[in-house]
């Protein structure tokens, strides 16, 4: 019998300590605890590590505080491209998607590739066509289009156009 355990991250693109007010910090801690709670609910009932990882990542994807799915950042064309990967240590089964937009939870898309296709990595339109035939919830572009990310994109494009040096924080660079 092993000791269950779960770890999560919400990305290295943190706001600088000076730039994060207590309310913002609390919001992030609350969101992180919600993801831990979702995964721990699986593990504490002897559920699988794969299911625990899936629900923990889904919880973070649903929260627009983080750079994934609903909180995803925009590319230079103002479009959204999302990537995800999942892997099972028991049998080294793996699934991944790249350059897609549509599935509410890209981690579920990666798991569908792992469990319902003969491939490990599917990308772009082919991936979206495969996923459309799976039992996966899709959302409209507007669902993913958050004001904060639009502002960040426009600021970065304006900086590039001006030729100003890249002095962005981790939060701005990593999203």
């Amino acid at each position: 019998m092993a000791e269950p355990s779960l770890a999560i991250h919400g990305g290295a693109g943190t706001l600088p300590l000076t730039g994060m007010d207590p309310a913002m910090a609390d919001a992030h801690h609350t969101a992180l605890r919600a993801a831990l709670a979702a995964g721990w609910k699986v593990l504490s009932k002897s559920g699988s590590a794969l299911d625990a990882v899936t629900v923990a990542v889904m919880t973070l994807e649903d929260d627009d505080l983080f750079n994934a799915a609903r909180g995803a950042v925009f590319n230079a064309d103002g479009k959204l491209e999302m990537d995800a990967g999942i892997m099972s240590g028991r049998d080294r089964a793996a699934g991944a998607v790249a350059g897609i937009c549509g599935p509410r939870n890209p981690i579920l898309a990666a798991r569908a590739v792992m469990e319902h296709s003969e491939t490990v990595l599917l990308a772009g339109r082919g991936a979206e066509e495969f996923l459309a035939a799976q039992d996966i919830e899709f959302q409209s572009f507007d669902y993913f289009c958050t004001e904060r990310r639009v502002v960040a994109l426009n600021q970065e494009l304006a900086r590039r156009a001006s030729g100003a040096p890249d002095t962005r924080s981790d939060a701005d660079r990593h999203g």
Partner: protein
Amino acid sequence: TVGAVARDAAGNLAAGTSTGGFTAKRPGRVGDTPIIGAGTFADNATCAVSTTGTGEIFIRFTAASEISARIRYASQTLEQAASGVIAELFSNGGDGGLIAIGRAGPPSLPFNSSGMYRGFVLSDGVFRTAIHRE
């Protein structure tokens, strides 16, 4: 980028990572997240890993499977391997962090950036979260 690694009561490990990339990235650019062995990796014999940061460096250094290799072939602990890879990436221009969990013991959550949104829970069921270097 967001991610999770887990060990269940049966001793199985798993890893998952999901991302939007970075703001104003080149259309079509893909980072380490969906690259198995770079941003996402799991093998019951060694560890499960999920990374976040400068994807190109994590790909070139196959960061996640490098941690597994150091455990398997150099007999390093999870903490030694995970922290060593993050330090080596930093000296090669790769900033960011990762979470890793092994066959036993607590997870490792090293990072070389100014912070990393992170959390973990052990068999005591206590939720621990952090953002900067607290």
